[in-house]
């Protein structure tokens, strides 16, 4: 599942994937994989991303329950 909230938060800060990757200390491909939902980051990386974007874990990574 794509992480559109992360993408939106990054865009709101006017950061490219490479800039966010440099802030967090990972490769650009890793940020892309998280946004595309191809990779589930560890809690350490989630926290680092949240700190870089000034968001909470809930705001960026908590999956909302789907009501069926």
């Amino acid at each position: 599942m794509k992480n559109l909230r992360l993408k939106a938060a990054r865009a709101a800060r006017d950061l490219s994937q490479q800039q966010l990757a440099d802030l967090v200390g990972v490769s650009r491909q890793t940020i892309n994989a998280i946004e595309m939902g191809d990779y589930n980051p560890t809690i350490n990386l989630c926290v680092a991303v949240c700190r870089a974007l000034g968001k909470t874990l809930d705001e960026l990574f908590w999956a909302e329950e789907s009501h069926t």
Partner: protein
Amino acid sequence: MLISPAYIFDLIAGMALIAGIAVMFYFVGRKSRREKKYDERQSLARLKAYRAAFWTFVVLLAINAFVESTGDGYRWGDAIIEPFLFICAAITVFVVICIFEDAYFALNEKRSFYLWMFGIIAFANSFIFLGNIGNYNCAYIENGRVTFRAMNPVVLVMFAILFASLAIKALISRGKERERSRDEEGAS
């Protein structure tokens, strides 16, 4: 049996050479380990690639043992080329998986350097291989067995595959990058 001084000298020289190469590899490896940094996704992808390379090596060894045990002592290659081929196959599997999983290059490494290096090594080996084809003193097959001289074409194939993998991955990445920047421009 009387051991000649020349034999002892050769033995010591050989062991010193091996020790020297081992020390060199240790220090070069330590330096590169310190400089290379992979993120968590890359480390995970490299672990999968190591696993695939390990099983490639094991399967090739098993097939080779089966073929040679059923062939009444038949061996298709000499004692050097057989393990060398399997090691090269395993390394190729590892590197190709790493390349396509974006886990081959550390965070501070440049792709173009490796592309050039793989291309130059493949080209140099093709040069040696083609030069040896007409040389009767450098037979690739002797008495029905592939000789150690086939290491050149093996290395040539390996680096040609690695070069092609890097080039294909670079093209794919460039296409995706263009698509991604178009999306981001459209969104902003």
